[in-house]
Protein backbone atom coordinates (compact mmCIF):
# COMPACT_ATOMS: atom_id res chain seq x y z
CA UNK A 1 0.00 0.00 0.00
CA UNK A 2 1.06 3.51 -0.49
CA UNK A 3 1.06 4.18 3.16
CA UNK A 4 3.35 1.33 3.89
CA UNK A 5 5.81 2.56 1.37
CA UNK A 6 5.69 5.91 2.96
CA UNK A 7 6.19 4.51 6.35
CA UNK A 8 9.11 2.35 5.42
CA UNK A 9 10.95 5.02 3.58
CA UNK A 10 10.22 8.16 5.48
CA UNK A 11 10.68 7.07 9.03
CA UNK A 12 13.75 7.27 11.09
CA UNK A 13 14.27 7.94 14.71
CA UNK A 14 14.47 11.70 14.63
CA UNK A 15 11.38 12.00 12.54
CA UNK A 16 9.59 9.68 14.85
CA UNK A 17 10.62 11.72 17.80
CA UNK A 18 9.40 14.84 16.12
CA UNK A 19 6.09 13.22 15.47
CA UNK A 20 5.97 12.01 19.02
CA UNK A 21 6.61 15.50 20.25
CA UNK A 22 3.82 16.88 18.21
CA UNK A 23 1.44 14.30 19.45
CA UNK A 24 2.55 15.14 22.93
CA UNK A 25 1.99 18.82 22.31
CA UNK A 26 -1.50 18.11 21.14
CA UNK A 27 -2.21 16.15 24.24
CA UNK A 28 -0.86 18.88 26.46
CA UNK A 29 -3.01 21.41 24.75
CA UNK A 30 -6.01 19.23 25.26
CA UNK A 31 -5.22 19.00 28.94
CA UNK A 32 -4.81 22.75 29.16
CA UNK A 33 -8.13 23.29 27.56
CA UNK A 34 -9.76 20.85 29.89
CA UNK A 35 -8.15 22.61 32.78
CA UNK A 36 -9.43 25.95 31.59
CA UNK A 37 -12.93 24.65 31.44
CA UNK A 38 -12.64 23.36 34.98
CA UNK A 39 -11.35 26.66 36.27
CA UNK A 40 -13.95 28.64 34.45
CA UNK A 41 -16.72 26.54 35.85
CA UNK A 42 -15.25 26.85 39.31
CA UNK A 43 -15.10 30.60 38.99
CA UNK A 44 -18.63 30.89 37.75
CA UNK A 45 -20.03 28.51 40.33
CA UNK A 46 -18.18 30.30 43.03
CA UNK A 47 -16.02 27.59 44.46
CA UNK A 48 -12.73 28.53 42.91
CA UNK A 49 -11.33 30.35 45.88
CA UNK A 50 -12.67 27.97 48.47
CA UNK A 51 -9.39 26.34 49.32
CA UNK A 52 -7.75 29.65 50.06
CA UNK A 53 -7.72 31.27 53.43
CA UNK A 54 -7.12 34.90 54.20
CA UNK A 55 -3.60 35.78 55.19
CA UNK A 56 -4.56 36.68 58.75
CA UNK A 57 -5.71 33.23 59.70
CA UNK A 58 -2.83 31.80 57.71
CA UNK A 59 -0.51 33.56 60.12
CA UNK A 60 -2.30 32.07 63.08
CA UNK A 61 -1.64 28.55 61.95
CA UNK A 62 1.86 28.94 60.78
CA UNK A 63 4.31 26.27 61.77
CA UNK A 64 6.19 27.24 64.90
CA UNK A 65 9.88 26.54 64.98
CA UNK A 66 11.09 27.78 68.35
CA UNK A 67 12.98 25.70 70.83
CA UNK A 68 10.93 24.35 73.67
CA UNK A 69 7.71 24.46 71.69
CA UNK A 70 6.10 21.98 69.40
CA UNK A 71 4.99 23.02 65.93
CA UNK A 72 1.67 24.25 67.24
CA UNK A 73 3.38 26.53 69.69
CA UNK A 74 2.40 24.54 72.76
CA UNK A 75 4.78 23.97 75.60
CA UNK A 76 5.78 20.41 76.31
CA UNK A 77 4.61 19.02 79.69
CA UNK A 78 2.55 22.07 80.31
CA UNK A 79 0.01 20.13 82.30
CA UNK A 80 2.34 18.49 84.71
CA UNK A 81 2.78 21.51 86.90
CA UNK A 82 -0.76 22.79 86.61
CA UNK A 83 -3.17 22.13 89.38
CA UNK A 84 -6.91 22.17 89.34
CA UNK A 85 -9.39 22.56 92.13
CA UNK A 86 -11.81 19.70 92.45
CA UNK A 87 -15.38 21.04 92.54
CA UNK A 88 -16.51 18.18 94.73
CA UNK A 89 -14.01 18.06 97.54
CA UNK A 90 -12.33 21.42 96.91
CA UNK A 91 -8.87 19.99 96.90
CA UNK A 92 -6.11 21.05 94.63
CA UNK A 93 -5.19 18.12 92.36
CA UNK A 94 -2.47 17.79 89.73
CA UNK A 95 -3.91 18.11 86.24
CA UNK A 96 -2.78 14.71 85.03
CA UNK A 97 -4.33 13.01 88.04
CA UNK A 98 -7.45 15.06 87.92
CA UNK A 99 -9.62 12.81 85.81
CA UNK A 100 -9.21 9.64 87.89
CA UNK A 101 -9.60 11.61 91.06
CA UNK A 102 -12.84 13.11 89.83
CA UNK A 103 -14.09 9.69 88.88
CA UNK A 104 -13.57 8.37 92.38
CA UNK A 105 -14.68 11.56 94.03
CA UNK A 106 -18.01 11.72 92.27
CA UNK A 107 -18.46 7.98 92.29
CA UNK A 108 -19.57 7.90 88.70
CA UNK A 109 -16.89 6.06 86.79
CA UNK A 110 -16.71 2.41 85.92
CA UNK A 111 -14.10 1.58 88.52
CA UNK A 112 -15.71 3.36 91.38
CA UNK A 113 -19.04 1.67 90.87
CA UNK A 114 -17.30 -1.67 90.76
CA UNK A 115 -15.54 -1.05 94.03
CA UNK A 116 -18.71 0.20 95.62
CA UNK A 117 -20.60 -2.88 94.50
CA UNK A 118 -17.94 -5.12 95.89
CA UNK A 119 -18.03 -3.35 99.20
CA UNK A 120 -21.77 -3.73 99.39
CA UNK A 121 -21.54 -7.40 98.52
CA UNK A 122 -18.91 -7.94 101.18
CA UNK A 123 -20.83 -6.18 103.84
CA UNK A 124 -23.91 -8.17 102.92
CA UNK A 125 -22.01 -11.38 103.16
CA UNK A 126 -20.61 -10.44 106.52
CA UNK A 127 -24.09 -9.76 107.80
CA UNK A 128 -25.42 -12.97 106.40
CA UNK A 129 -22.76 -15.23 107.78
CA UNK A 130 -23.17 -13.78 111.18
CA UNK A 131 -26.92 -14.26 111.21
CA UNK A 132 -27.32 -17.85 109.96
CA UNK A 133 -24.50 -19.69 111.53
CA UNK A 134 -26.51 -22.85 111.63
CA UNK A 135 -27.31 -22.96 107.97
CA UNK A 136 -23.90 -22.40 106.55
CA UNK A 137 -21.30 -25.05 106.36
CA UNK A 138 -18.76 -24.99 109.06
CA UNK A 139 -16.14 -24.80 106.46
CA UNK A 140 -17.58 -21.61 105.00
CA UNK A 141 -17.87 -20.08 108.37
CA UNK A 142 -14.34 -20.81 109.24
CA UNK A 143 -13.30 -19.31 106.01
CA UNK A 144 -14.95 -16.01 106.77
CA UNK A 145 -13.98 -15.70 110.35
CA UNK A 146 -10.46 -16.81 109.92
CA UNK A 147 -9.45 -13.30 109.05
CA UNK A 148 -8.38 -14.03 105.52
CA UNK A 149 -7.51 -11.05 103.38
CA UNK A 150 -10.02 -8.92 101.60
CA UNK A 151 -9.40 -10.65 98.33
CA UNK A 152 -9.48 -14.14 99.70
CA UNK A 153 -12.96 -13.56 101.10
CA UNK A 154 -14.43 -13.99 97.72
CA UNK A 155 -12.89 -17.35 97.16
CA UNK A 156 -14.65 -20.38 98.49
CA UNK A 157 -12.35 -23.14 99.46
CA UNK A 158 -14.49 -25.92 98.17
CA UNK A 159 -14.61 -24.73 94.62
CA UNK A 160 -11.08 -23.60 94.00
CA UNK A 161 -7.59 -24.99 94.17
CA UNK A 162 -6.54 -22.52 96.81
CA UNK A 163 -2.89 -23.40 97.04
CA UNK A 164 -0.88 -20.43 98.17
CA UNK A 165 1.69 -19.42 95.60
CA UNK A 166 5.16 -18.91 96.93
CA UNK A 167 6.00 -15.60 95.34
CA UNK A 168 2.67 -13.83 95.31
CA UNK A 169 1.31 -15.20 98.56
CA UNK A 170 -2.08 -15.53 96.96
CA UNK A 171 -4.41 -18.44 96.67
CA UNK A 172 -4.57 -20.19 93.36
CA UNK A 173 -7.93 -19.43 91.79
CA UNK A 174 -7.97 -22.23 89.32
CA UNK A 175 -10.36 -25.12 89.61
CA UNK A 176 -9.89 -28.05 91.88
CA UNK A 177 -8.19 -29.93 89.11
CA UNK A 178 -5.55 -27.30 88.57
CA UNK A 179 -2.52 -29.00 87.07
CA UNK A 180 0.03 -26.79 88.73
CA UNK A 181 -0.68 -27.99 92.22
CA UNK A 182 -1.05 -31.42 93.65
CA UNK A 183 -3.78 -32.62 95.92
CA UNK A 184 -1.30 -32.80 98.73
CA UNK A 185 -0.74 -29.09 98.46
CA UNK A 186 -4.44 -28.43 98.44
CA UNK A 187 -4.87 -30.57 101.49
CA UNK A 188 -2.07 -28.80 103.25
CA UNK A 189 -3.58 -25.42 102.59
CA UNK A 190 -6.96 -26.48 103.82
CA UNK A 191 -5.55 -28.03 106.93
CA UNK A 192 -3.62 -24.87 107.56
CA UNK A 193 -6.69 -22.71 107.26
CA UNK A 194 -9.44 -24.89 108.54
CA UNK A 195 -7.82 -27.03 111.12
CA UNK A 196 -6.59 -30.59 111.03
CA UNK A 197 -10.02 -31.98 110.35
CA UNK A 198 -10.34 -30.32 106.97
CA UNK A 199 -11.16 -32.47 104.02
CA UNK A 200 -10.90 -31.68 100.38
CA UNK A 201 -14.29 -30.79 99.01
CA UNK A 202 -14.78 -33.96 97.01
CA UNK A 203 -16.62 -36.77 98.66
CA UNK A 204 -15.46 -39.39 96.27
CA UNK A 205 -12.01 -40.71 96.87
CA UNK A 206 -10.27 -42.28 93.99
CA UNK A 207 -6.76 -43.07 93.11
CA UNK A 208 -4.44 -40.60 91.55
CA UNK A 209 -3.42 -42.96 88.82
CA UNK A 210 -3.55 -40.56 85.97
CA UNK A 211 -0.93 -42.40 84.16
CA UNK A 212 -3.47 -44.90 82.87
CA UNK A 213 -3.89 -44.64 79.16
CA UNK A 214 -7.13 -45.03 77.45
CA UNK A 215 -5.94 -48.24 75.91
CA UNK A 216 -5.16 -49.75 79.25
CA UNK A 217 -8.52 -48.82 80.59
CA UNK A 218 -10.20 -50.25 77.53
CA UNK A 219 -8.49 -53.56 78.14
CA UNK A 220 -9.53 -53.45 81.76
CA UNK A 221 -13.11 -52.64 80.91
CA UNK A 222 -13.31 -55.48 78.45
CA UNK A 223 -11.97 -57.84 81.05
CA UNK A 224 -14.50 -56.60 83.51
CA UNK A 225 -17.41 -57.27 81.24
CA UNK A 226 -17.60 -60.97 81.77
CA UNK A 227 -21.08 -61.49 80.53
CA UNK A 228 -20.76 -59.23 77.57
CA UNK A 229 -23.94 -57.42 78.57
CA UNK A 230 -24.13 -53.81 79.66
CA UNK A 231 -21.64 -51.99 81.78
CA UNK A 232 -23.32 -53.15 84.91
CA UNK A 233 -22.14 -56.66 84.40
CA UNK A 234 -19.18 -56.52 86.77
CA UNK A 235 -21.45 -55.79 89.64
CA UNK A 236 -23.92 -58.35 88.44
CA UNK A 237 -21.41 -61.06 88.60
CA UNK A 238 -21.85 -61.18 92.31
CA UNK A 239 -19.70 -61.46 95.31
CA UNK A 240 -17.29 -63.94 93.86
CA UNK A 241 -15.86 -61.26 91.73
CA UNK A 242 -15.84 -58.61 94.41
CA UNK A 243 -12.18 -58.71 95.13
CA UNK A 244 -11.31 -58.61 91.50
CA UNK A 245 -13.64 -55.74 91.03
CA UNK A 246 -11.85 -54.00 93.74
CA UNK A 247 -8.56 -54.35 92.07
CA UNK A 248 -9.75 -53.51 88.59
CA UNK A 249 -12.14 -50.92 89.81
CA UNK A 250 -9.38 -49.00 91.41
CA UNK A 251 -7.48 -49.10 88.21
CA UNK A 252 -10.28 -48.03 85.97
CA UNK A 253 -11.47 -45.49 88.43
CA UNK A 254 -9.26 -42.64 87.60
CA UNK A 255 -9.24 -43.12 83.87
CA UNK A 256 -12.99 -43.57 83.83
CA UNK A 257 -13.56 -40.55 85.88
CA UNK A 258 -11.18 -38.67 83.66
CA UNK A 259 -12.43 -39.68 80.27
CA UNK A 260 -16.01 -40.76 80.64
CA UNK A 261 -17.45 -38.21 82.87
CA UNK A 262 -20.88 -38.35 81.45
CA UNK A 263 -21.59 -42.02 81.68
CA UNK A 264 -23.45 -42.62 84.86
CA UNK A 265 -22.99 -46.34 84.67
CA UNK A 266 -19.27 -45.97 84.79
CA UNK A 267 -19.65 -43.68 87.66
CA UNK A 268 -21.56 -46.31 89.46
CA UNK A 269 -18.68 -48.70 88.98
CA UNK A 270 -16.39 -46.04 90.24
CA UNK A 271 -18.60 -45.46 93.19
CA UNK A 272 -18.53 -49.07 94.04
CA UNK A 273 -14.81 -49.29 93.94
CA UNK A 274 -14.43 -46.24 96.05
CA UNK A 275 -16.76 -47.64 98.62
CA UNK A 276 -14.89 -50.86 98.75
CA UNK A 277 -11.33 -49.79 98.31
CA UNK A 278 -9.18 -48.11 100.86
CA UNK A 279 -8.07 -44.96 99.22
CA UNK A 280 -6.25 -42.08 100.72
CA UNK A 281 -5.88 -39.72 97.79
CA UNK A 282 -8.69 -37.52 96.64
CA UNK A 283 -9.86 -36.85 93.15
CA UNK A 284 -12.02 -33.89 92.13
CA UNK A 285 -14.97 -35.89 90.89
CA UNK A 286 -18.06 -36.31 93.02
CA UNK A 287 -19.89 -39.52 92.14
CA UNK A 288 -23.61 -40.01 92.21
CA UNK A 289 -24.15 -40.85 95.84
CA UNK A 290 -27.24 -43.08 95.52
CA UNK A 291 -25.76 -45.54 93.05
CA UNK A 292 -22.97 -46.94 95.20
CA UNK A 293 -25.49 -47.95 97.76
CA UNK A 294 -27.37 -50.08 95.25
CA UNK A 295 -24.32 -52.07 94.46
CA UNK A 296 -23.32 -52.23 98.05
CA UNK A 297 -26.48 -54.18 98.56
CA UNK A 298 -25.70 -56.52 95.76
CA UNK A 299 -22.19 -57.07 96.91
Amino acid sequence: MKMEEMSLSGLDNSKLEAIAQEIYADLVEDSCLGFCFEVHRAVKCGYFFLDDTDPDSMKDFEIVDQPGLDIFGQVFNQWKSKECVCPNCSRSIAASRFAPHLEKCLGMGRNSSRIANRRIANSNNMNKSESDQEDNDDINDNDWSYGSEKKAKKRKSDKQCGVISEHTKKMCTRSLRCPQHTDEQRRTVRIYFLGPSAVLPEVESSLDNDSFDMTDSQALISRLQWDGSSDLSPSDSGSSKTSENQGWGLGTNSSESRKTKKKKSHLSLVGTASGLGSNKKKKPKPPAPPTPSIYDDIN
Partner: protein
Amino acid sequence: MNKDAQMRAAINQKLIETGERERLKELLRAKLIECGWKDQLKAHCKEVIKEKGLEHVTVDDLVAEITPKGRETGFAMLPRLVLSSRTQAILLPQPSRLLG
Protein backbone atom coordinates in the same frame (compact mmCIF):
# COMPACT_ATOMS: atom_id res chain seq x y z
CA MET B 1 5.94 18.66 3.97
CA ASN B 2 2.96 16.96 2.73
CA LYS B 3 4.31 13.55 3.40
CA ASP B 4 5.01 14.40 6.98
CA ALA B 5 1.61 15.90 7.40
CA GLN B 6 0.07 12.84 5.98
CA MET B 7 2.23 10.72 8.17
CA ARG B 8 1.16 12.64 11.19
CA ALA B 9 -2.45 12.43 10.27
CA ALA B 10 -2.16 8.73 9.71
CA ILE B 11 -0.51 8.15 13.02
CA ASN B 12 -3.05 10.26 14.79
CA GLN B 13 -5.81 8.39 13.21
CA LYS B 14 -4.33 5.09 14.22
CA LEU B 15 -3.97 6.26 17.74
CA ILE B 16 -7.53 7.34 17.97
CA GLU B 17 -8.76 4.18 16.40
CA THR B 18 -7.02 1.91 18.80
CA GLY B 19 -8.11 4.06 21.74
CA GLU B 20 -4.50 4.62 22.54
CA ARG B 21 -4.87 8.35 22.38
CA GLU B 22 -7.38 8.41 25.20
CA ARG B 23 -5.17 6.26 27.29
CA LEU B 24 -2.22 8.49 26.61
CA LYS B 25 -4.22 11.53 27.52
CA GLU B 26 -5.25 10.10 30.84
CA LEU B 27 -1.71 9.04 31.52
CA LEU B 28 -0.45 12.48 30.69
CA ARG B 29 -2.99 14.13 32.91
CA ALA B 30 -2.02 11.99 35.83
CA LYS B 31 1.65 12.66 35.29
CA LEU B 32 1.10 16.38 35.02
CA ILE B 33 -0.76 16.47 38.28
CA GLU B 34 2.01 14.48 39.91
CA CYS B 35 4.65 16.86 38.65
CA GLY B 36 2.73 19.78 40.05
CA TRP B 37 2.12 21.25 36.66
CA LYS B 38 -1.54 21.66 37.45
CA ASP B 39 -0.87 23.54 40.66
CA GLN B 40 1.47 25.89 38.87
CA LEU B 41 -1.13 26.54 36.29
CA LYS B 42 -3.78 27.05 38.92
CA ALA B 43 -1.69 29.69 40.62
CA HIS B 44 -1.31 31.41 37.31
CA CYS B 45 -5.05 31.20 36.80
CA LYS B 46 -5.67 32.85 40.15
CA GLU B 47 -3.48 35.76 39.20
CA VAL B 48 -5.24 36.17 35.90
CA ILE B 49 -8.61 36.06 37.54
CA LYS B 50 -7.64 38.56 40.17
CA GLU B 51 -6.49 40.85 37.43
CA LYS B 52 -9.56 40.52 35.37
CA GLY B 53 -12.00 40.49 38.24
CA LEU B 54 -13.94 37.48 39.30
CA GLU B 55 -17.14 38.36 37.57
CA HIS B 56 -15.86 39.03 34.12
CA VAL B 57 -13.74 36.07 33.37
CA THR B 58 -14.60 34.20 30.23
CA VAL B 59 -13.41 30.95 28.86
CA ASP B 60 -11.69 32.59 25.99
CA ASP B 61 -9.73 34.84 28.28
CA LEU B 62 -8.59 31.98 30.31
CA VAL B 63 -7.69 29.89 27.34
CA ALA B 64 -5.76 32.69 25.71
CA GLU B 65 -3.83 33.40 28.86
CA ILE B 66 -3.19 30.00 30.13
CA THR B 67 -2.65 27.74 27.18
CA PRO B 68 0.67 29.17 26.08
CA LYS B 69 2.06 29.04 29.56
CA GLY B 70 0.73 25.57 30.01
CA ARG B 71 2.34 24.39 26.87
CA GLU B 72 5.67 25.83 27.76
CA THR B 73 5.79 24.37 31.19
CA GLY B 74 4.42 21.13 29.86
CA PHE B 75 7.31 20.86 27.50
CA ALA B 76 9.66 21.64 30.27
CA MET B 77 8.28 18.66 32.04
CA LEU B 78 8.72 16.40 29.07
CA PRO B 79 12.16 15.07 29.96
CA ARG B 80 10.79 14.09 33.34
CA LEU B 81 7.91 12.18 31.90
CA VAL B 82 8.66 8.63 31.16
CA LEU B 83 6.85 7.12 28.31
CA SER B 84 5.59 3.70 29.00
CA SER B 85 7.18 0.96 27.01
CA ARG B 86 3.99 0.34 25.16
CA THR B 87 3.75 3.93 24.08
CA GLN B 88 7.30 3.87 22.94
CA ALA B 89 6.73 0.72 21.03
CA ILE B 90 3.90 2.42 19.25
CA LEU B 91 5.58 5.67 18.48
CA LEU B 92 9.13 4.62 17.92
CA PRO B 93 10.60 2.00 15.51
CA GLN B 94 8.39 -0.62 13.98
CA PRO B 95 6.21 1.77 12.14
CA SER B 96 4.91 -1.00 9.98
CA ARG B 97 2.96 -2.33 12.91
CA LEU B 98 1.29 0.99 13.38
CA LEU B 99 0.46 1.63 9.82
CA GLY B 100 0.16 -1.84 8.42
